[in-house]
């Protein structure tokens, strides 16, 4: 033990160093808390939130070609796609597309597998509900969830 270390020990230098750090951070400028409902977090562009089924903005038709790839790719098998043949154009047209939020782990594999950029995981992350209707259907996914505005 050198003299310096004895002195440092006697005068609590090690403790004072720590105290200085905590003292410094008391400044209100250092506060990192995000007051969530008032302060909106910035969501990254690639955020994997609730899925959205994109529609062609010009025609309003769904981009989905009912290829079923997303349902096949899903590790939890929670997507179910049902299609029917359009009698006029003889094309396969999506009839129902349902999705179970309660089992989804937002891995993004369905998004990767979609050949037409129809299925996309959106930046919507607020889908807590007071009811147990976790299965979300096509209409709701096409319009997207309406962001909640919190009131007291």
């Amino acid at each position, binding site marked *: 033990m050198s003299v310096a270390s004895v002195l440092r020990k006697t005068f609590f230098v090690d403790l004072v160093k720590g105290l200085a750090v905590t003292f410094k951070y008391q400044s209100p400028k250092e506060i990192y808390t995000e007051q969530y409902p008032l302060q909106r977090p910035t969501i990254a562009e690639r955020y994997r939130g609730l899925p959205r089924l994109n529609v062609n903005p010009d025609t309003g038709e769904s981009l989905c070609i009912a290829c079923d790839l997303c*349902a*096949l790719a899903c590790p939890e098998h929670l997507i179910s796609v049902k299609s029917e043949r359009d009698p006029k154009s003889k094309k396969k047209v999506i009839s129902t597309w349902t999705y179970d939020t309660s089992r989804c782990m937002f891995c993004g594999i369905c998004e990767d597998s979609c050949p037409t950029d129809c299925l996309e995981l959106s930046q919507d992350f607020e889908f807590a509900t007071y009811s147990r209707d976790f299965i979300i259907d096509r209409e709701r996914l096409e319009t997207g969830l309406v962001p909640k505005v919190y009131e007291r």
Partner: protein
Amino acid sequence: MPEDTLGNSSAPETAAAQAADAKSSVGSQGEPPVQPAKPTGEEAPKPLAAPAAATAAAPGTGAPAPPAAVPSKTPAAPAKPAGPVPEPWNEPLPNDLMSRFGSAVREASTYLGQAYLVIDCAEAPEVLRVLRDECQFDYCVDLTAVHYPKREATQFDVVWILYSFTRNQRVRVKTQIKDGDTVPSVVGLWPTANWLERECYDMFGIQFAGHPDLRRILLPDGWKGFPLRKDYPITQQDTEWVRENLHIESGQ
């Protein structure tokens, strides 16, 4: 002083030597435990010999692919239709073992550059002891099993994955046992095998002879069935246990 304790790894070899001196099992050759990455017997796949273990695995394909996972189109062919095959592992180490244990070491091969030995279960403790004591495989990385219910004679592969710090080499030691056979425990050789063997017992029901405390580890005591066996479906649950202990009806 605390500042001195971690020399920021400026003197690594001395520290390694210290550790080696503490007990002779580390770095007894006097060389540092870590060599710069040299592909010692690894990373050199050359397709050659018949895949013994692999072919044994093939008939054991228990679970058929679910129909949902196979689209109507033919599945895309693998890039290399033949695939790499095991090749003989020609090095002093396996040759020594072969000559010493004779037919007990049934196979010494490398697959994709990874060496493995297939040995007789009866000789397993001795082979493993030699591997640890004489070949410096002082670190038991993992111990696990694979279930092949369709195989006629032996239903389980028990796999020890060993690593040697001095050789910087990994080897898998495999043995094949019948359902219900006991495997000699290696807890005496590597204390780390304790929990690994317990887990193996928990998941496969393989008995390890000489294990100090062979109980279930992840599943609760009294659970019925061994989940990682192929005849244990993924949704199966010991409903009786759940009802008795959790006082709920199983949600399956």
